[in-house]
């Protein structure tokens, strides 16, 4: 067993604001292995974007990292790095693709130069050599007739092509870890599909580990090896992609799967999650999801549930998994998924 490339331990991030202390991340642990894709799913305010910004040392000045929090990159703790030291990691070891390709490109700089810039900075090569590599990267991310377009400016390109350029920049310094924060949310479905294919192809070629942040469970199903579901600054369920989609245990995961239609969902069957996301200025004493949880127990309001083990790769933080908890019947959509999981297991046993 190879050691994970990235280990996050007890990650806690608070933001000091005029209104008070917002506890954006409240104890997050996960590992990331080379070549795999971990999808982090959650709604706005769940802490998924703050998690990734913390991994890059990009949090705003009012952010405060927990005393015990560790971000181990190949065994070295990044949590205590100075801004100068971060520069040695950011881009070259861990790189990021943002949601909006227009705002993450420099409108006044030629695209070829934007891709060559990190190559020159991190590999200390001449401009001509960097530009040659930039051209190759443009071809790798699927920009047609790359030679003709290396001197174009971002405004000359469509949204999908710009996002390819952003990916090329992120990959320019051969990072081991790529963090993609909603990279396809601003794109049309057909373009989204192309960008996902590009990411998968390049991941295979370079053995890059990817952390993929999204709220779109359809995208997660297609790209992830493992999934972490975040709610109110905590991971509430994590497992292999099949475990989370076919054998979900946490009522919030049930809610997410039941509230997003697929093209096969029959009308009148969409189950909304009641209520609104939890206010992290005043996090509750018990389970943050308790107020919205139709399967909630009395203890949810008193005590935060630990992560219960479902399988060696699958964990969920819900008191429903405690031995003393009453047995509940999940929603129909989840029953259907769990029945399918049963057939998968039976086939596997054969």
């Amino acid at each position, binding site marked *: 067993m190879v050691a994970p490339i990235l280990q996050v331990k007890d990650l806690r991030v608070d933001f000091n604001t005029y209104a008070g202390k917002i506890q954006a991340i409240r104890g997050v642990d996960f590992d990331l292995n080379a070549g795999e894709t971990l999808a982090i799913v959650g*709604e*706005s*305010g769940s802490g998924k974007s703050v998690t990734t910004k913390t991994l890059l040392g990009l949090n705003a000045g009012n952010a405060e990292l927990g005393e015990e929090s560790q971000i181990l990159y190949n065994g070295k703790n990044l949590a205590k790095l100075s801004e100068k030291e971060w520069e040695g990691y950011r881009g070259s070891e861990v790189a990021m693709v943002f949601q909006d390709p227009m705002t993450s490109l420099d409108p006044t700089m030629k695209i070829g130069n934007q891709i060559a810039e990190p190559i020159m900075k991190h590999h200390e090569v001449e401009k001509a050599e960097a530009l040659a590599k930039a051209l190759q990267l443009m071809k790798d991310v699927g920009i047609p007739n790359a030679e003709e377009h290396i001197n174009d400016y971002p405004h000359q390109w469509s*949204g999908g092509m710009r996002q390819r350029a952003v990916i090329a920049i992120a990959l320019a310094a051969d990072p081991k870890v790529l963090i993609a924060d909603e990279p396809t949310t601003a794109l*049309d*479905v*057909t*373009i*989204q*599909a*192309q960008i996902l*294919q590009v990411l998968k192809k390049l991941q295979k070629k370079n053995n890059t580990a990817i952390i993929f942040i999204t*709220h*779109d*469970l*359809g*995208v*997660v*199903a*297609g790209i*992830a090896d493992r999934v972490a579901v975040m709610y109110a600054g905590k991971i509430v369920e994590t497992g292999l*992609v*099949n475990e989370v*989609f*076919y054998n979900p245990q946490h009522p919030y995961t049930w*809610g*997410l*799967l039941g*509230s*997003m*239609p*697929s*093209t*096969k*969902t029959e*009308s*009148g069957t*969409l*189950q*909304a*999650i*009641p209520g*609104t*996301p939890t206010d992290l200025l005043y996090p509750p004493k018990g389970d943050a999801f308790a107020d*919205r949880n139709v399967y909630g127990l009395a203890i949810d309001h008193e005590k935060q549930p630990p992560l219960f083990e479902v399988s060696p790769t699958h964990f969920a933080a819900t008191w429903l998994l405690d031995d003393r908890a009453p047995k509940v019947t999940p929603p129909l959509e989840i029953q259907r998924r769990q029945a399918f999981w049963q057939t998968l297991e039976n086939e596997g046993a054969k």
Partner: protein
Amino acid sequence: MQNPDAKKLVEIKDLNLTFNAGKSNATKAIDEISFDIYEGETFGLVGESGSGKTTIGRTILKLYDQDSGTITFDGQDLGQLKKQGMKDFRKQAQMIFQDPQASLNGRLRVEDIIGEGLDQVGYSKKRAEREAKVLELLKLVGLNKDHASRYPHEFSGGQKQRIGIARALAVQPKFIIADEPISALDVSVQAQVVNLLADLQKQNKLTYLFIAHDLAMVKYISDRIGVMHWGKLVELGTADEVYNHPLHPYTKSLLSAVPEPDPIVEKQRVIKPYDASFEKDGQERKMVEVEPGHFVLATPAEAEQYKAEQK
């Protein structure tokens, strides 16, 4: 299923609209589009960004003037309406916008945001009656009277969108255009708003034009669906027909790219590419009814071919 006796509420005929007409950057945003919206149904419009779906919605509300073609609402040609007629029309057709933050006046309290519409139509001069009506509307969208005296910034995105819906309902419209009404909302809240729209439709016999790029959501909420590409309507039919038996290669390509929350399905997904070049080959294409109620934009030969591919 489409009721053959259903009344046409909105009839759009041979609509054309060009932005920057006569200039070098002229863009044909709506290109010879015709379709009808029946009373009580939800008509979904899908297509990639820039396909013209939002422009159609705005043109129906006369926020843009078309170059040619007619829009008929409840039997009246909107082009012929004078000032008073236009005012009456605006009572009957309302809009729900994408960004609930930007579409609510931040300096008005919720009761005035909703009450403004009531004042416009001269609902009542009595303060108490106006208040009562606002409360009734708030209740309708799942808010309560405590919310009436607050300002928009005190609400979450989903609640703001509920306020936007209450405002649209204040003038008792027949027809609502919802342009990406849920895309700015959290996933867990999207279903709440969609279910609310469906309930309100039933209670108030509303007709919706639902514009969105989330194809699964459009399928879920719509009775019939129109697919747009480059300003043209390329396919039209019931939601089930269009999604289960798509005819046009663009529709097929679009549907092949919709991700489903199912890892095994996703791992086997094959995306059908779409080569749009044939659209500009100069041949004349018309909407052909391939199956009853299911239309595709095609030449006679293409229509035969699409039909054969279905078999």
